[in-house]
């Protein structure tokens, strides 16, 4: 894999929480722009920690992380939002804002990016249709089921057509049919150039997608 076309590059990255043991050890990883990977491994292997490093809520205790050609160690706080706007994130615990409607939650990244409501309204409704929540636009997250919340979280992550999509167990709360539908959404997005990493335990989904797998085991990454 050519390092020059890598959208994400990790070199000898290590991460530990406090004075505990290293949860990630000597991780070396280059993700080419437009690639689609699954990230899997046993529970506690460090999948969520690796994703945290990639969506920039954690800094590595050692090693180098480079994203979109920029060294994250030298990235100023002022420039951090510009990088984050190029990344879409689906959290395992959804992290929806309970005081905003489904529509407003999905439109949040566009609003933060400074777009006007009239410019994104149709896109948001189209995506609501895609994820099967067209009738839930004015509903607040607390009354949604786990699966519905998950679909809102996915819609929020993909609404900006980000350069990089990171998803932590995005199909964990939906039925197999919806999981496949969401997988098609990710694949569609990938066709348009979005680099995708999906952390999942769902071996059925991995088998269906026929995409390369990053196996995380005992803090280290193996390509499969």
């Amino acid at each position, binding site marked *: 894999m050519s390092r020059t076309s890598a959208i994400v590059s990790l070199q000898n990255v290590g991460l530990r929480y406090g004075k505990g043991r290293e949860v990630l050890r000597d991780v070396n990883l280059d993700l080419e722009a437009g690639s689609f990977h699954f990230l899997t491994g046993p529970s506690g292997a460090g999948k969520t920690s690796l994703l945290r490093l990639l969506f920039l809520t954690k800094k590595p205790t050692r090693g180098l992380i480079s994203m979109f050609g920029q060294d994250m160690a030298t990235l100023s706080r002022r420039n951090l*939002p510009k990088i*984050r706007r190029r990344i879409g994130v689906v959290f395992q615990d959804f992290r929806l*804002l309970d*005081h*905003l409607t489904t529509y407003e939650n999905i439109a949040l*990244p566009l609003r*933060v990016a400074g777009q006007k409501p009239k410019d994104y*309204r149709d896109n948001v409704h189209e995506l609501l249709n895609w994820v099967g929540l067209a*009738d839930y*636009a004015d509903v607040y997250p607390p009354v949604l089921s786990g699966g519905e919340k998950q679909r809102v979280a996915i819609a929020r992550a993909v609404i900006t057509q980000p350069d990089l999509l990171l998803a932590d167990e995005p199909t964990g709360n939906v039925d197999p049919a919806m999981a496949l539908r969401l997988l098609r959404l990710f694949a569609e997005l990938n066709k348009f150039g979005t680099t995708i990493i999906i952390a999942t335990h769902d071996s059925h989904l991995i088998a269906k997608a026929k995409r390369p797998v990053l196996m995380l085991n005992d803090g280290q990454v193996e390509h499969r």
Partner: protein
Amino acid sequence: MANRSKNKQQKRVRSLMPRSQMPLRTLMVSMTVMCYLACLAIGALVLITRAVNDWSSEIAGEVTVQVRPSDDVKMSEKLTVIAAILDKTAGVSSYEILDKQAGAKLLEPWLGNADILDQLPVPRLVAVSIDQKALPDFVLLESELKAKVTGASLDTHRRWQAELTRMGDSLVWLGVGVLILITASAIALVIFASRTALDANRQVVEVLHLVGASDPFIARQVQWQFLRAGLQSGLAGVLVGMATFVLLGISSGGPASSGLADASYGLLIGAPEVTSVTYLLFLLVPIVATFLCLVAARLAILRILSNAD
């Protein structure tokens, strides 16, 4: 249904920080009290400045010629010479020779209403009104009086005027100090409320950061709500402050009464040259409160967010 919801979304753009999770009510109550205190301090400052100016101009508009009795010249002759000198002195508007009873009356508080005053060499006084636009030459007047009238002296009241001005200045500085303390307390309040607002919305802030919001964007979500709270508190504080002065004025019988009530009444319902200053200063209170809430909240939030990582 889809169309209906589209229309609903079209109309509203909700704040990203829920108002219910911000300490806005507490902030408004505290800021209203601060603005009310600021109004009282401003009112007191205007009252003091007005009183000192009135007293000073009263004193400055008059001088007194005092003449002590002597054995060699009759008092009536002395007074005639003094009158002649005053008549030809430029800058003297008018004068009044106070009779012996008037002089004795001034000494009554110390000596009582006794016949002994007739036996004492009580000085006679001449109250001289001066033209404040073209003041007489006091040095020349005093030297002429002393040269031509034995026992005559001129009291220009300058010492009292200086004392009064000094006292007035001290009170004004005290008032300004109180206003500075009120402002400092208000800033501390806004900083504390900003921190509480961020703590209460920690999850919202985290999500906003993750979807690419910058610190100034997050600060804007809070600062406009604080601005509104500042404006409402400022207006409420000023209204209550003005009501206090009006009540003080009318509680003692309206404009005909005297003392503090009269002065309070005059602050808001008196002559336009006084009330315009009062209203202008009172108007500054909500403006300053609004600006202070906006700026202090923004700076506090930016600082807290930048220190958070």
